[in-house]
């Protein structure tokens, strides 16, 4: 089990009061953490702890997921909606205990299952670390580096017409809107770059850290509005106390996991379900709304199972047929001649070449992703190790863009050919292929 592998080894306090202390530290490291008493109740599956644990799970997962996936107005306020959301997110992450998903949506019982789910999240998602990152106070100028491949592919909910069809003009409208939003984004990024550059040039030599050399926007803000430093101080203090709690938790984590082992022991027949069909592909599920998922899940699961069985059957049949064919052929054929050394070398070279080009293509992926600190440097100024030049990253991203554009062209050509074939079938229709759209 992966969980065991995550246990930190080393000295831990194992006195009688160690467990409540560990849980208290964890509570402080997480927003809205529950009391040790709730955990104790949950171990014995008492219904009193249910509501608190559901709301704990909900608030944690909501905080992690609200950033980019759900808009705030979708916030479910009823307990039922919250429970559905928690189940959905856990499914997305591949949590496999059937007992958990069978818990009633009125929140009447199942505190022990909830405790198990919470602990699984703790280990699997590294919850305390995630919240440390979320609360981190940034003082530098950040730049997000990401490429299309990192973006979640979100389906656009299309309003269907009366016959269940979408008017193509509506899709063109949405595409146009996207294009305009993209322009807006581009222009505001350009503006931000210009303004950052102005600040960086103006504050050159003001930063105490020689390797940075200029002030960032938040630092400049503090200089302009000294009263805002109070708020910064508060934020830093809160981050600090979080860090302390986190350290304490890390120190005592083992006690918690040992206790969790005893919780697992008290669950008869509650061994985690490890068979493969329970694990769903998170990237597929994240694109759907929780409502949809819980409603459709059972049906999809049944379909999948039936499909899998049929597939297995077909595979077995095919395999047997192939074996027959191959054995017949090998009896008939003479042994293939040995490859000459020259030929082998040639093949090896070709493979080597293919591998290097493949490597280069993969190299595109190797740029850093996520939030990075942006520091301004004049050309030819020495660069300390570890820092990446933005120009280089832009080059990589441009290559990626070019490859995506090639794919797009190819797909467009394919579509055009397909459309042309379809149009040939219509009498009296002249087919004028559309020009490639500008960005």
């Amino acid at each position, binding site marked *: 089990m992966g969980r065991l592998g995550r246990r930190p080894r080393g000295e831990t306090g194992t006195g009688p009061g160690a467990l409540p202390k560990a849980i208290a530290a964890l509570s402080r490291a997480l927003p809205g953490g529950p009391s040790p008493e709730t955990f104790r109740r949950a171990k014995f599956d008492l219904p009193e702890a249910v509501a608190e644990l559901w709301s704990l799970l909900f608030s944690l997962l909501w905080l992690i997921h609200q950033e980019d996936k759900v808009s705030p107005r979708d916030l479910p306020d009823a307990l039922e909606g919250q429970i559905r959301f928690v189940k959905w997110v856990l499914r997305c992450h591949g949590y496999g205990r059937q007992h958990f998903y069978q818990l009633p949506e009125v929140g009447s019982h199942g505190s022990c299952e909830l405790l198990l789910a919470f602990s699984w999240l703790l280990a699997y998602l590294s919850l305390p670390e995630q919240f440390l990152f979320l609360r981190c106070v940034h003082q530098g100028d950040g730049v997000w580096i990401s490429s299309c491949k990192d973006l979640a592919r979100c389906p656009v909910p299309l309003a269907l017409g009366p016959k269940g069809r979408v*008017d193509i003009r509506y899709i063109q*409208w*949405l595409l146009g809107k996207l294009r*305009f939003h993209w322009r807006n984004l581009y222009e505001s990024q350009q503006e931000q770059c210009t303004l950052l550059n102005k600040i960086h040039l103006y504050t050159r030599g003001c930063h105490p850290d020689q390797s940075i050399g200029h002030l960032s926007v938040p630092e400049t803000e503090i200089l302009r509005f000294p009263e805002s430093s109070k708020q910064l101080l508060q934020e830093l203090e809160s981050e600090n106390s979080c860090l302390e709690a986190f350290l304490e938790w890390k120190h005592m984590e083992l006690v918690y996991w040992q206790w969790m082992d005893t919780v697992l022991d008290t669950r008869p027949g509650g061994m985690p379900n490890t068979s493969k069909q329970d694990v769903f592909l998170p990237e597929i599920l994240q694109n759907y709304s929780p409502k949809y998922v819980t409603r459709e899940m059972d049906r999809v699961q049944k379909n999948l199972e039936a499909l899998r069985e049929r597939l297995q059957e077909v595979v077995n049949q095919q395999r047997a047929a192939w074996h027959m064919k191959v054995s017949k052929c090998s009896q008939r054929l003479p042994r293939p001649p040995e490859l000459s050394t020259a030929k082998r070398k040639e093949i090896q070279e070709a493979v080597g070449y293919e591998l290097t080009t493949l490597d280069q293509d993969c190299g595109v992926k190797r740029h850093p992703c996520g939030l990075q600190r942006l520091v301004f440097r004049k050309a030819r100024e020495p660069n300390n190790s570890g820092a990446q030049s933005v120009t280089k990253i832009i080059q990589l991203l441009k290559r990626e863009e070019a490859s995506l554009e090639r794919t797009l062209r190819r797909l467009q050509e394919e579509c055009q050919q397909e459309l042309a074939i379809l149009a040939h079938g219509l009498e009296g229709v002249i087919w004028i292929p559309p020009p490639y759209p500008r*960005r």
Partner: protein
Amino acid sequence: MSVVTVQLGQCGNQIGYEVFDTMCRDLHNTQGFCSKRENEIYQASCKEHFFNEDKSEVPVARALLIDMEPKVISQTLLKAAHSGRWKYGQHSHFCQRQGSGNNWAYGYSVHGPKHEESIMNLIQREVEEYDSLSGFSIIMSMAGGTGSGLGAFLTQNLRDAYPNSFIMNQVIWPYGTGEVIVQNYNSVLTLSHLYRSSDALLVHENDVVHKICAKLMNIKQISFRDVNQVIAHQLGSVFQPTYSSEDSFQYRRNPLGDLMTALVPHPEFKMLGLRNIPQMPENSLAYTTFAWAGLLKHLRQMLISNAKMEEGIDWQVRPPLSGLPALEKVSPNKELRFNTSIANLLILRGKDVHSADTGGFKDPALYTSWLQPSDAFCEWRTHRAFNKYEKSAALVSNSQFLLKPLDTIVGKAWNMFASKAYVHQYTKFGIEEEDFLDSFTVLEQIVASYCNL
């Protein structure tokens, strides 16, 4: 974010001047019905979009003046400098000695390529001075030579040089009984070329504005200046600052981009029209009061009955019952009665603006079947009054309103083209018959697209 105004030809330069002057007069207007502090933020937001700061503290318009004759440009520069409120940049104009003689082909094929480099350099120098660029607003006539021919050429060049900027063309539609014999040819060529490279064509019909001057503004001897001032007022009421959202008091940063995103995302539908309410002589303003409900009721009826001004609205026109296809909607040749919209943007300014109920514009029956009002309708508000009107509303609409004038122009041009009249004047400068045919095809397609909403 900055908007660069490009004033082209006689018409573009004269209207451009009036637009900046109207904006500046509005900024200095003390009857804004808002606090001093609020007024300052309003001024700052307007200046951020349309003016540069200068050492002399007189705002400098973010505009470029381009004409092939020097006369109008020097007049315009002088008038702005004399106003004392604002001025043009010192090096922001380009002119030559010889005009285009109302020949579109001359502007497009001779003046365009010849001066391409100088004009594009001028624009680039201007743009480089800004921290940000939202896009271009190009003011030009549709039927002349320089504004229309060179304008079409320049728009194409701007599109290539600034693929991520918005381009809006303010197109002045000629009088139906215009004095230029080839105005329909010029119009067909201008519209078809702009449709390929511009993002939106905001159309100002001379006939309509003339009627507004006569009927609403009570002007007896209507001059070009009067017409231009009405257009400037209409443009100002759209592009002066508005709040970015209903519950915020922050002004929107990118009015041009927001307008485009709301109205013209579909590349087949780029024709925009503009209606205003109320409009009246300045000296009557003091004796009139307005209620939002009345203003919006009129404006809505103006929209659906395709009336261009308050007076003479046909109150019989009603939206078609939802679910039933409106007969008026499908037939291109029949007199259009109900004006179907693709998208509308309503801009409200003035006292008690937050109490104005815009529900009448959110009726799905007003819009084409493939868009919901939530996609198709947008509203901007600010309680800072505009240009001495205590309350005022402007409606920018992407709708069927231009079908008839467009059809007329295409029809007249086609009749001339069929008898090959004056075509040699165009082929002489490289605009072949095939180019004409292409242009007719483009416009027929636009008419068909708007008919089948």
